[in-house]
């Protein structure tokens, strides 16, 4: 999801306007940058249809209005159309975030009847070779077919391509593919380093030259295409000198429900130690959102340390991303070290410096998102 699309002025009541329903971690693809937790295979006890419907009702009553069905591959759930129909009846704007695997004519008809509003389809690249390599599947041709189905059925279509060192040089071809498929929006989202992407960072982090070229090319197409297809280009955090306002602030507008019912302030937070995330099986969405210690842990500014605590930009970026702070400094309450003002910024600089090596030889092999790798205690 493009962070720039998040509502800029959350109401005073602080409702969870954005609900991301990760209905399953099951997925036929094995993308090397997957943002699912490394130990996703441990999660087998998925919420029931009735559980999900209750979550949708409770979240909607609090003011949630944008709803993403995500995963994993959400189409792996047989009850997806049933959940979409419930959400549509409640007045949600419903987004399906899919790899395309499992989306045939019958399924897309069923979803249309249920009231699905929009489909976001991922491609791993504009070439069959790289698409199929990065996902470790033969899915490129299928995705092209699905894109045509999506448009034939009158859906708005967002194409999402996660960029990395391995495909970013194809950005011109990726844009041309999106135009040819008649996408309404194209998200060129550079990989952010959580989950499997963190594990594979050496392979995935592009060089500065690559990023600058890709941005230049994208801007060139923006000028050429005019308003025909909107494009979002998301720069990797590691190349920014100020952190992103992650999730518009912890527990501010975004609520993620994991397949097993765990309620999280973002997709990556599951791995943060020391926080007891509540489960929708044990508490209402209202209790979780307003009262749980986990959702209040980094809300507002009281938790901040220096340099954030006295920083004039703290109300703009909220100290950045708690997960990134934890992964790179060992403590979630530290400033996000992508910030040049962080005393630990050197960690990020070192990673970026290494990515400038032309013939970089990673120190360990690329790990695909697979059950077997997920079950071993250290997937690397």
């Amino acid at each position, binding site marked *: 999801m493009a962070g720039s*699309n998040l509502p800029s002025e959350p109401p005073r009541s602080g*409702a969870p306007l954005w609900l991301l329903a990760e209905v399953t971690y099951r997925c036929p693809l094995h993308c090397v940058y997957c943002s699912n937790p490394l130990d996703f295979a441990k999660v087998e006890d998925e919420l029931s249809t009735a559980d999900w419907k209750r979550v949708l009702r409770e979240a909607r009553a609090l003011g949630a*209005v944008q709803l993403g069905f995500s995963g994993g591959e959400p189409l792996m759930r047989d009850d997806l159309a049933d959940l979409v129909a419930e959400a549509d009846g409640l007045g949600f704007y419903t*987004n399906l975030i899919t790899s395309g695997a499992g989306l045939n004519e019958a399924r897309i008809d069923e979803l249309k009847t249920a009231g699905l509003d929009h489909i*976001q389809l991922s491609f791993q690249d504009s070439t069959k070779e790289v698409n199929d390599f990065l996902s470790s599947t033969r899915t490129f041709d299928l995705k092209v077919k699905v894109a045509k189905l999506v448009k034939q059925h009158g859906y708005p279509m*967002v194409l999402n391509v996660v960029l990395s060192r391995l495909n970013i040089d194809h950005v011109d071809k990726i844009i041309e593919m999106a135009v040819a498929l008649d996408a*309404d929006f194209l998200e060129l989202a550079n990989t952010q380093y959580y989950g499997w992407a963190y594990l594979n960072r050496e392979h995935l982090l592009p060089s500065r030259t690559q990023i600058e070229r890709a941005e230049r090319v994208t801007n060139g197409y923006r000028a050429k295409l005019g308003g025909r297809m909107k494009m979002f280009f998301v720069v990797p955090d590691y190349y920014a000198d100020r952190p992103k306002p992650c999730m518009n602030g912890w527990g501010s507008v975004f609520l993620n429900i994991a397949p097993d019912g765990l309620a999280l302030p973002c997709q990556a937070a599951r791995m943060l130690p020391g926080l007891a995330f509540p489960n929708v099986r044990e508490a209402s969405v209202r209790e979780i959102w307003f009262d749980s210690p986990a959702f209040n842990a980094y809300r507002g500014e009281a938790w901040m340390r220096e340099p954030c605590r006295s920083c004039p930009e703290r109300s703009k970026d909220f100290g950045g991303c708690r997960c990134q702070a934890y992964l790179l400094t060992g403590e979630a309450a530290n400033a996000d070290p992508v910030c040049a003002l962080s005393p630990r910024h050197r960690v990020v600089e070192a990673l970026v410096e290494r990515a400038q090596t032309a013939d970089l030889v990673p120190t360990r092999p690329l790990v695909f998102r697979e059950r077997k790798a997920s079950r071993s205690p250290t997937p690397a």
Partner: protein
Amino acid sequence: MAEITLETLPALRSLYRLQWEEAQQAWVLLYPEGMVRLNVPAAEILKRCDGTTRVAALVRDLEHAFGASGLEGDVHEFLREAANHGWIELAQ
């Protein structure tokens, strides 16, 4: 960008959905993975962008609804902005 005249027929693009949100006490414009919260005048104009109401009638209707006059300039300005955002299509 097409010029906006009194004869123009503005229509909300099918990508967008206009909806009253009780929790926010506001009209919002919903689109793929995004939302814009609208102020009252913006919502009142967009509600009337139905593809069959010409700008002249839209202005008259608004002036009548709000007991105001001289809204034409404001309506033109907002429609231009809405078209720039891609929220509406303009037919003649």
